[in-house]
Each structure stands twice: as structure tokens, then as C-alpha cells.
């Protein structure tokens, strides 16, 4: 099963750049005189790499959220962090500060995490569902604020914001890509570095504390790192929901292992999942690509429910 999954994933990663509205053949992509050369190297390949790293970042961020907030329903999206980043990006668009979008998105996600953490520290550790409710309330607040922005913006800005909130992996060249790749490797490094502490936190905060872990500091570092990388992702691709929530659960349920051993796997399969969703989105035969967020939810939700039901039976 394990080897089959890895094999299947690698196949998806390899074939992904070749399929789309214009089919590519392998022999033409090295011929600099053909248009296929440009499509492959300037569009498809960057897009696949972008999808992989964004998926990987979102999945790992989901794991960090589920650990630090001790709630299996936590993810950058269910707790409103991505909405915060989206709202701040929209503000940047309206203020005409398009070149500072990444910075604004980061501010949005960081502000949300600070709010969440301040509220969480007032709760008793068993009240994790209250935090989820706060996150949902925040999301609603942000979407209302976004509506206000629509209302006061002009047509051009509105259009830009709408396109942005739909989420898209469209990318040209490698410029934005570097940032995402660095962000991905950064969060992987941070989570790996704190692997032991994370394992202790999987038992309970009190347990981690008694085993010598500086729980507060660890949580702060993890959450701030996540807000940086989620902010970067959102600023480039817009909000892409559901990956962070489900990928950690799917990998855990399939492997039946404690998640500290699955950091690499969650990173990898998070990436593969988004590449696969993007492959589907580009190949449904319509005139334009379906927004990626639609596909992640369409494919992810039923599979997720299936896994939950299967686990209940066990």
C-alpha cells in the first residue's frame, strides 16, 4: 500500500505538467523553437512546483494548528487565519499597494493568530471547541469586512479582489516561486526541528511541560512560522481551503501512526494532493480552469467523510 501510494504520487507529479488545455509531448519540450517549450518551462512546470509547495505548506500548517490548539478541526482556514490574510491582501489592492501584497497577507495572518492565541490562553485547556467557534466568528467578521471593501472599491479593484479570493495557481516564470519554495523548506525545517517537542505536545501540554519542554515558547515559534508561510501562500495563490484540514487526517488514518513520524509524509502528500487537484482542475474540458479551491473541496470532502465513517467502524 505504502509503495503503491508513493509510486502513484510520483507518477502524478511527473505527468502533471504535460496535461492541460494544450497537450504537450515529451520530445517537444526541449526544442526551444516550439511554443511547447515555453508553455512547459514558463507555465506548466512552475505551476506544478507551486502547487506542490503550497499544498505541502498548507498540510503541514494544518498539522501545527491541530497540535498547538489541540483540536482536530483546526486549520489555517477553519480558524480564520487565511481569511485574515485574504482581507489584508484586499486592503493592499484597494490602497494601491500591490507590490506589498505578501507583507500585508503576512500581517493579516499574524494578526489573526495573535488574536486566537490571546483568546486561547484565557480558555481552560479542555475548551478547544470554544476556540473553533471564535475562529468561525472571526471568519464571518472578515468576510463581512471584505464585503465592505467591495462596496467602497471601484470596478477594477473589485474584479481583482474577486479573482484573488477564488484562489488560483496561475503563475508565470519562477520569480514568485522562489519565495514559496523557501517558505516550504523553512516550515519543514521548523517542524522537524521541534519534532520532539511536538511529540510531547501530542500527549498534552501539561505532559510536555513536565518533560522539560518550554510549551509557550514552542507554541509561539510554531504559530508565528505558520503565519509567515500561510501569509506568503495566500498572497500568491489566494485562499485554497481544505488541504490543511484534511491531509494530516488522511495520512494519519491511512498509516495509523502517531503524527510526529509523519511530518515528511504530510508535507509530501499535501503537495501531491494539490498537484492532483490542479491536474483535475485544468483537464475537465471547460474553456477556463475551474478555481482550485472548488476542486480541493469537491475531491477532499467526500473522501474525508468516507475516512471518518470507516474509522468509526473500527
Amino acid at each position, binding site marked *: 500500500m505504502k509503495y503503491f501510494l508513493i509510486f502513484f504520487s510520483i507518477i502524478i507529479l511527473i505527468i502533471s505538467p504535460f496535461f492541460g488545455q494544450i497537450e504537450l509531448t515529451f520530445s517537444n519540450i526541449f526544442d526551444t523553437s516550439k511554443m511547447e517549450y515555453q508553455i512547459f518551462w514558463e507555465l506548466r512546470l512552475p505551476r506544478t512546483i507551486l502547487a506542490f509547495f503550497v499544498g505541502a505548506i498548507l498540510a503541514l500548517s494544518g498539522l501545527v494548528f491541530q497540535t498547538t490548539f489541540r483540536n482536530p478541526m483546526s486549520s489555517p482556514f477553519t480558524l480564520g487565519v487565511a481569511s485574515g490574510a485574504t482581507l489584508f491582501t484586499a486592503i493592499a489592492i484597494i490602497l494601491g499597494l500591490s507590490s506589498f501584497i505578501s507583507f500585508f497577507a503576512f500581517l493579516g495572518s499574524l494578526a489573526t493568530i495573535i488574536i486566537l492565541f490571546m483568546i486561547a490562553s484565557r480558555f481552560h485547556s479542555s475548551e478547544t471547541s470554544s476556540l473553533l467557534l471564535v475562529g468561525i466568528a472571526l471568519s464571518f467578521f472578515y468576510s463581512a469586512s471584505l464585503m465592505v471593501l467591495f462596496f467602497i472599491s471601484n470596478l477594477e479593484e473589485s474584479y481583482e479582489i474577486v479573482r484573488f479570493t477564488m484562489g488560483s495557481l496561475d503563475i508565470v516564470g519562477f520569480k514568485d516561486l522562489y519565495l514559496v519554495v523557501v517558505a516550504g523548506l523553512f516550515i519543514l525545517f521548523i517542524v522537524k526541528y521541534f519534532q520532539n517537542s511536538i511529540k510531547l505536545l*501530542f500527549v*498534552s501540554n501539561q505532559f510536555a511541560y513536565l518533560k522539560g519542554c518550554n510549551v509557550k515558547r514552542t507554541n509561539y515559534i510554531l504559530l508565528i512560522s505558520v503565519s509567515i508561510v500561510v501569509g506568503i501562500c495566500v498572497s500568491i495563490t489566494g485562499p485554497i481551503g481544505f488541504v490543511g484540514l484534511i491531509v494530516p487526517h488522511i495520512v494519519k488514518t491511512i498509516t495509523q501512526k*502517531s503524527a510526529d513520524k509523519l511530518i515528511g509524509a504530510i508535507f509530501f502528500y499535501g503537495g501531491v494532493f494539490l498537484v492532483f487537484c490542479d491536474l483535475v482542475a485544468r483537464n475537465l474540458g471547460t474553456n477556463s480552469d475551474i478555481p482550485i479551491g472548488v476542486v480541493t473541496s469537491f475531491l477532499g470532502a467526500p473522501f474525508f467523510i468516507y475516512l471518518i465513517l470507516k474509522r468509526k467502524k473500527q
Partner: protein
Amino acid sequence: MLKISNYNSDILHDISFTLENKNLIILGSNGAGKTTLAKVLSGVTKSSCVTIDDKNPATVYGEKRTRLINYIPPKLEMYDEFMSVAEFLKLNQLYSDISINEVLKLVNCGYIKDKKCKTLSSGEAQLLLLASAILHNAKYTIFDEPTSNLDPQKIKNTFQVLEDNTILQNKIIITHNLNLAYKLKYNILYIKDHKIVFYDTNEKFFDEQNLQFFFEDSVKKCDDNIVVNI
């Protein structure tokens, strides 16, 4: 030496005592503040009133704290669904030479090694916590009601582990099981109405008159055992 001086909070008033490399039993009625005291001593609840070998456990991290004190809650709290017993015990292996297999044998629970922690019964989970304390082997280990979920045989087994002073260093045991307290022969600290009202030897505490004073006619000595008189 473990020392707490003038600790005050909503739940505990004027708490001061010292414990010089010895075992201790903490008794008291429900809600008297025993668990709160345990959390203060172990640094889980921060305060500036506690020192263990001149260090405050709430302000040091890593090995400096883990060597000093460990707190074992009455119930195993576990967030992760898939962590196995062996994995959990491995996290506790700090200052003891005993292996995971040996420690499970010691608590008579060898068969749970490959189970997931979440699937254990409450009794098995309690024995797992005892095993984890043995592997950690801090200078002071506080057990919060270590026998509350156990059947009589397992209580007896737990008693034997606690009685053996070669297995763990100093133990502080919070319990409602008076017979366990009596047979372990440790000094007794009794908390009543948020205050320490008794801190002296086991012998003095289990004196007939003293028992009458603290428990009225609800307990009695019978055949050199303390039993609940129903």
C-alpha cells in the same frame, strides 16, 4: 530538599512545609486543594514560593526541571489517537536504567505494550502512568490518586511498587485510600478547609483518637488494616 513557604491562592491558604529527601502522603477531603498543591509543587501552576534543591521548578526548563520533579495525574490525558504504549513510555525514559519491557512487567501489564494509549481501560492507563513515573525517575514524584481506578489486585501490586524504595526516589502520594497510606508508613500531611492541619508521622496520624478526630466514625482499624466503616 523540597520547600514551599507562605503559598496563598483562592484554594490554598498559608501553605508552608519542607520535605527533606523523604516520602510523603497527602490526605484530605474532596476539594480540599490537594491537586492544586501538587500542581504548585511541580511547577505546573507557577508560583515563586516553591524551591527544590534551591531551584524553582516553574522557572527552569529542560533537564534542570525534569531531574527535580514529576507529577502524575490521576487520569492519562492523551490528544494523539495513534500513539502506542511503547512510544509513550519512550518519551518518559529519562533517569532510570529500567527498560520498557521490564517496567511493564513490574506493573503487571506486559500485554499492553503494542496497544494504542487511547484504547486502554482506565485501570490500564493508570498503571501505564505508574510505569511512566518509574522511567522518568525524578528526584520527587507526585502521584495524584494512583489507585483510584484500580481493582484490588492492581492496588496491591501498585502498593508493592511504591513500597520498594529502590525503584523510585522520593514519592509524594495524594490518595483517599487510607489503608494504602497506613501501610506505606510515610509521614502524613493532611489538608482541611484549604489549610495544612496535620503534618507528622504516620504513627501519630493513625492513632485511634486522631482518626476519630479527622474521620469521626467513618473509618476504623480492623486487623491492622484501615477500613471504611459503612
